[in-house]
């Protein structure tokens, strides 16, 4: 049983709106004259070909007034609903999806909706919504091309939202002004021994400036606000199921993460190199690419197969629709299945500023290359060892194996070493670095141990029995702060129709803040204590690793005070 899925459903739902595409309800195929007049008025600005085709379809469906009875019987329908009915029943090729739409639809939405329905709904929105271009930049561009719209829609100046995940804050929606994005890089993390990353991982990096008027240097160094957009598998269980991975049974989304989280994950967590290759984009291309990527971020669901539909293939698809030069370049015409191959192809094409990676030393200075940090930790460890009288560790692994309390005690027992820590900043930083590494490492272990504990406890199935053991207040906290979040994470990540408006974004902030209160945490602890199985190995394991983590944090704080 894979109940652990409860935990591992991605956190991205937390900031997402529950808006979903309105499905076209099958209505009688008649349009009242009033409804048609209203619709026609709304189509005045539409491309002529399109208006004409719609009118042809409408003529077949307009109900004569003497047959319709009073208008009030059915009422005047909204233009969008009328149009959707009309389009869903049309056989006019002008109003049906073509091959390009089919391709775009796969990239933007995946294959989760019937094509014709999607086309009808999207076209209806295009013809009736003034800000369609801001919500659906990919489709807006397509319709403009297909129907040769004389007047391009007003340029969209709105900020672009992304849901960015953070381990401790959960997911939050950030609104990004495209003017603050100075560059877009192709980001490549070198391979690891993991099956999921055997050929590396590829994504896009948004170089976000502190403000719209920042200098290039300020933008480059603003790493804490840079974002990474990458297609990732959504593995909703603890263990990677190889068969499912090969069969494409895991869902894929275009996730947004803070660059520094990605950097920590790869360069520190997995000791991998990270390369960042600037793409040659002008301001207009960059603005459009950003908006189109946002549309994909909010709408796309695909199936992730580690060898045939992975971060590299999906990224190529996205780049092909949002960057014409990528689609036509000789080096990138081919479909690459491996991230490293794709990266190499782009690097050796005219699409990117490959010279930035000619010297890795220079690239590291300028923010195009990020070292694997193992070398720094090993040097730090060597310096700390040399300064200690009798170090009880010989390498990073053995350092981590000494429990944090003992490590702290050994430092304070070694008078000369303690004295040096207080005066030698370089040594102190090295020592802090090692303790911070212990924090990062144990944090990963906490996630594993936590997930295993939840799997073992199977709170969802035992919910009623557990509630029966608790008083009303504790049962409520148990429901609100444990079961409800679990349920939310069980549910699939909700997809939206294009880029949402601010009003579309609903959060669980109120509930979240209630559960974050000291009292709620206390009550949840009490509830867990009341039901916990003291003999549970997972419980003990989670406790132990949590203490290791907390003691390592305490050590870092103590060392900083020296």
């Amino acid at each position: 049983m894979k109940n652990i899925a409860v935990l591992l459903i991605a956190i991205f739902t937390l900031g997402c709106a529950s808006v979903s595409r309105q499905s076209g309800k099958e209505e009688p195929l008649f349009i009242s004259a009033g409804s048609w007049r209203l619709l026609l008025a709304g189509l005045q600005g539409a491309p002529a070909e399109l208006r004409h085709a719609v009118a042809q379809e409408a003529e077949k469906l307009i109900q004569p007034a003497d047959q319709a009875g009073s208008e009030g019987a059915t009422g005047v329908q909204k233009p969008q609903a009328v149009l959707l009915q009309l389009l869903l029943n049309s056989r006019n090729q002008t109003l049906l999806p073509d091959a390009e739409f089919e391709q775009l639809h796969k990239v933007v939405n995946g294959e989760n909706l019937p094509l014709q329905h999607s086309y009808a709904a999207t076209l209806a929105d295009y013809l009736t919504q003034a800000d369609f271009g801001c919500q659906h930049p990919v489709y807006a561009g397509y319709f403009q091309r297909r129907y040769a719209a004389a007047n391009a829609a007003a340029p969209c100046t709105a900020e672009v939202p992304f849901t960015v995940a953070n381990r401790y804050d959960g997911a939050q929606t950030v609104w990004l002004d495209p003017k603050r994005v100075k560059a877009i890089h192709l980001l490549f993390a070198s391979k690891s021994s993991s099956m999921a990353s055997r050929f590396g991982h590829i994504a896009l990096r948004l170089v976000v400036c502190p403000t719209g008027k920042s200098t290039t240097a300020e933008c480059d160094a603003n790493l804490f606000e840079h974002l990474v957009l990458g297609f990732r598998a959504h593995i909703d269980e603890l263990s990677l199921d190889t068969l499912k991975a090969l069969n494409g049974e895991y869902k894929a989304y275009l996730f947004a993460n803070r660059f520094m989280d990605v950097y920590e994950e790869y360069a520190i967590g997995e000791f991998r190199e990270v390369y960042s290759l600037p793409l040659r984009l002008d301001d207009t291309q960059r603005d459009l690419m950003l908006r189109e990527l946002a549309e994909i971020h909010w709408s796309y669901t695909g199936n992730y197969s580690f060898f045939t539909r992975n971060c590299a293939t999906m990224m190529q698809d996205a780049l092909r629709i949002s960057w014409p030069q990528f689609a036509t370049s000789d080096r990138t015409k081919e479909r690459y299945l491996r991230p490293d191959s794709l990266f190499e192809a782009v690097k050796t094409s005219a699409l990117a500023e490959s010279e930035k990676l000619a010297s890795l030393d220079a690239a590291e200075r300028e923010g195009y290359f990020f070292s694997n940090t193992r070398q720094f930790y090993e040097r730090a460890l060597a310096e700390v060892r040399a300064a200690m009288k009798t170090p009880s560790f010989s390498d990073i692994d053995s350092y981590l194996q000494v429990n944090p309390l003992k490590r702290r005690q050994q430092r304070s027992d070694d008078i000369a070493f303690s004295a040096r820590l207080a005066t030698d900043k370089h040594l102190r930083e090295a020592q802090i670095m090692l303790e911070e590494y212990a924090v990062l490492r144990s944090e990963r272990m906490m996630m594993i141990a936590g997930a295993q504990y939840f799997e073992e406890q199977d709170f969802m199935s035992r919910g009623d029995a557990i509630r029966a053991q608790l008083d009303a207040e504790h049962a409520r906290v148990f429901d609100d702060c444990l079961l409800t979040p679990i349920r939310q994470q069980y549910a699939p990540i909700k997809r939206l129709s294009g880029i949402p408006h601010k009003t579309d974004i609903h959060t669980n902030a109120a509930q979240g803040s209630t559960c974050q209160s000291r009292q709620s945490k206390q009550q949840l602890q009490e509830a867990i204590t009341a039901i916990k199985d003291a003999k549970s190995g997972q419980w003990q394991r989670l406790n132990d690793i949590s203490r290791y983590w907390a003691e390592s944090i305490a050590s870092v704080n103590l060392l900083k005070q020296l």
Partner: protein
Amino acid sequence: MKKTALFSLFMVLIASIPAYADGIVRVQCDEEDNGTEIYIDGKFAGECPADVPVNAGTVQLRARKAARDGYERIFTKQIRVVDGVAQRVEIVLSAPQMTSETRLKKETAEADTLLAAADAGDVEAMEKLAQRYAAGSGVKKDLAKAQVWRNRAEAATAQEQLRAANFGDIKAMLGIAARYDAGQGVSKDPSQAQAWRERAETKSRENKAQEEAAKHAKVLQAKAQAKQNKIDQFSFFENTSKFVNGAGVDNNNITSILLTGVPIMTLGFATDLISAPTRTTEINKLKNEAAVRPSTWGKPDSMIARASQQLDKSGSAAQAPLLVMADK
């Protein structure tokens, strides 16, 4: 015949009695002490055994017999003599004792030794010498000299006390303060006396603080021991390697989890579980610093290092922060 002999003896005795004496003291001793000199009121009066004619009244009898070199055995007794009555005295000599000449010689030699030691700065010798001058023992009695040596002894004692005081001896500090008050061994100086009293107080406080510190150190030691016990009893750490090495967990699986995003709920749950005093913003701050430290430390000219500096400088990520960054 027998009667005749007794009579003759009686006559001899009668004949030997001075005509002016009122009484006789008949001095007898053991045979081995025969020859012991007899003195009546300090005047030699014959050798034992002897009948010594004395005037009536109280007399002081002293008997003396020379012993080994410089020693003698003596006997003294006060005797009341009555007219016409023979007073019989049995001499029992004392154990050998020093003769006065010998004692004088000895005391003189001792005084010479004391003088040499006192001249060399021996305070005890000075004090003894002062006593001898006062008593005339081994030296000629001389009260002025006695006072001179007493003064020198006090001055030397004061110097010794001063040295001890300078080395932090609180008793010596109080002693020297008293000396400055009284002008004993040092020139009278109330301000010096006060200064030494204050130093004594300060030192006393310091000593108390040190004692407290020592006690505190003991407490700390006990706490450290308790902590050590806690460590020793922390069963998990015996298996730390299992956790940090992953033991088959941290290879494919953890990477996969991170690929999907992070099960933050388990993290939040775990931190709540241990009632970690660390807040989310603090953890984020720590993690930001942890992320930049390796490159900042190992490669100070890297972009990561510059990013860290820029963040430090700006105090926040940007004027219009994209992400909530309460971290720095």
